[in-house]
């Protein structure tokens, strides 16, 4: 919502583009390899990831511009790794504000300062703040110059039927209503997914206590890019407030409504202005400020049981809704897009077996459930659901005033990378390792020469070796060999000796590893990773 007199897209700092429906109309009904419903950040990323693999797609969105207002603002390191692999990261790095530190306050006193995992071995910082409009704009700029993506705005999908070898979509725009056959469909149509409804599927899970208003304000406010969490502050007794810095002097104020506070009342402009003013007073801002945009949300943990339905894959908010203070909503969706895109491309190109697609749900739904577990912890701390949780939360905060150890309970733990533990295409770990990253885990950051290990990886699978002999027996496999010296930072980080090796998936998760690699073991793991022989 925006202040009275301003339209949904009348922003203080962002010029919304306007997109027309397709002008070229001859080929609208031509069959396509992949259709993507929804050009939000997740659908756009999926289109770019498919194009990166050489796969053509049609990207459909009902709207005529980007999402109104800045919703997701915290983009994680893992998302930047995805955007970098797609070659679209530069404008993000230029615009966004990196951060590593969070501070928590209880009744005005700081009780915790935490640092998210970071170091010289990491190419990117743990988190970057940037408004969602810019995320969409930067993705769109890359799509606009990508010939493999046919983007159609003001094009609403209203029907989907199974055919023998794909789906038949019904699409409506201002000029026409037409059908289009797609071999595969990615449903990136958001929390209120049309496709999910058309398929009769439902999100399942829980609604947590606590409703929050998020408001963006523009102001000159002197504070570094540090996440601030205010527990039980004077401006909002019994509630929690989060404050985040964004580019363009925009600040995100996120505050919890009290029990019994009426949400429809609380989001009236005067009510939002009064609440924001009291938060700004609390954080010591006395200068001018402008209200940009606001919205209300509650903390849900909801997901589909299966992210796949025949030839349809659900990605992003259509598949899962997570509480936003875990900052995983969008980040999780980008990982979905990256995960399904390479798999679909490899299967379509005959480079992997069709069964590979069945690893999408266990990997990505597993990641969602992990987010749920963490987010549920945060939700219980920020908005304790019962008297017991409330008492322990208050005890921890109160004790933290004198004993800092108790403050660590207020750490939101937003940055634990997820390991694909239950994936049918990830090999069991080699028991000869006592440490280092396990199969399923994302490849960790480490320096290689003047750059980073991630810079050395190929576009597809990569085999990291520390000994020249192994690869001579593997040159028929569809993978990039990365030879590293046995005495190196990378070898130490990977607990590798000269005979060790790591097989890495196109999405930079580890598929298998061996303390003593043999060509046969690599060959078997590669076959597993592409879900069986393709010949």
């Amino acid at each position, binding site marked *: 919502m925006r202040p009275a007199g301003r339209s949904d897209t009348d922003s203080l700092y962002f010029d919304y583009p306007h997109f027309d429906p397709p002008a070229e109309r001859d080929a609208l009904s031509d069959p396509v390899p992949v259709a993507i419903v929804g050009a939000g950040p997740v659908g756009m990323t999926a289109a770019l990831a498919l194009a990166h693999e050489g796969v053509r797609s049609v990207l459909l969105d009902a709207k005529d511009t980007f999402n109104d207002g800045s919703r997701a603002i915290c983009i994680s390191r893992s998302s930047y790794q995805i955007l970098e692999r797609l070659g679209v990261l530069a404008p993000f790095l230029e615009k966004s504000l990196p951060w590593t530190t969070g501070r928590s306050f209880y009744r005005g006193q700081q009780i915790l300062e935490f640092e998210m995992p970071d170091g010289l071995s990491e190419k990117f910082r743990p988190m970057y703040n940037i408004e969602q409009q810019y995320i969409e704009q930067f993705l769109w700029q890359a799509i606009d110059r990508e010939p493999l993506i046919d983007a159609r705005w003001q094009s609403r999908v209203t029907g989907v039927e199974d055919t023998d070898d794909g789906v038949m979509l019904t699409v409506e725009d201002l000029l026409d209503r037409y059908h289009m056959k797609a071999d595969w469909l990615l449903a990136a149509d958001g929390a209120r997914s049309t496709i999910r409804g058309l398929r009769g599927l439902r999100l399942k899970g829980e609604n947590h206590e606590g409703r929050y208003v998020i408001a963006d304000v523009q102001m000159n406010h002197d504070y570094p890019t540090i996440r601030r969490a205010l527990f039980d502050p004077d401006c909002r007794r019994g509630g929690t407030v989060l404050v985040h810095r964004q580019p363009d002097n925009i600040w995100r104020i996120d505050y919890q409504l009290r029990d019994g506070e009426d949400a429809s009342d609380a989001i009236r402009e005067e009510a939002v202005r009064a609440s924001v003013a009291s938060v700004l007073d609390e954080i010591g801002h006395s200068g001018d400020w402008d209200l940009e945009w606001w919205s209300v949300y509650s903390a849900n943990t909801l997901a589909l049981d299966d992210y796949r339905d025949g030839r349809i894959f659900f990605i992003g908010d259509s598949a899962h809704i997570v509480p936003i203070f875990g900052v995983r909503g969008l980040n999780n969706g980008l990982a979905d897009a990256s995960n399904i895109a390479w798999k679909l491309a490899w299967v379509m190109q005959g480079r992997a077996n069709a069964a590979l697609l069945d690893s999408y749900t266990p990997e990505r739904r597993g990641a969602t459930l992990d987010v749920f577990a963490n987010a549920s912890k945060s939700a219980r701390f920020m908005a304790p659901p019962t008297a017991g949780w409330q*008492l*322990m939360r*208050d*005890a*921890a905060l*109160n*004790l933290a005033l004198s*004993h800092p*150890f*108790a403050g660590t309970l207020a750490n939101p733990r937003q940055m634990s990378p997820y390991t694909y533990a239950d994936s049918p295409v990830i090999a069991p770990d080699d028991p000869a390792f006592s440490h280092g990253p396990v199969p399923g885990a994302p490849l960790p950051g480490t320096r290689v020469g003047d750059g980073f290990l991630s810079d050395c990886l190929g576009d597809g699978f990569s085999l990291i070796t520390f000994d020249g002999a192994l690869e001579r027996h593997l040159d028929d496999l569809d993978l990039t060999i990365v030879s590293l010296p046995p005495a190196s930072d990378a070898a130490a980080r990977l607990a590798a000796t000269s005979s060790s090796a790591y097989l890495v998936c196109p999405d930079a998760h580890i598929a298998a590893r061996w303390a003593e690699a043999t060509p046969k073991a690599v060959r078997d793991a590669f076959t597993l990773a592409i879900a069986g022989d393709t010949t």
Partner: protein
Amino acid sequence: MTAADLETVYEALAKQLDAIAQDKRDLFLAKLVLLLSHDLDDASQVLSRIRESAANIDV
């Protein structure tokens, strides 16, 4: 801990509880448990003590 020590703790706790407003006693006890758990540095022992303390509570 000797019987005398235990008695000292018992008395100190009773006095402290009386010195704290009734609606803050829960908070005080919860803080104390967190603090002592931290000192004890043994989560599984604390967990079994939590279970033991909950026994007979409705007698």
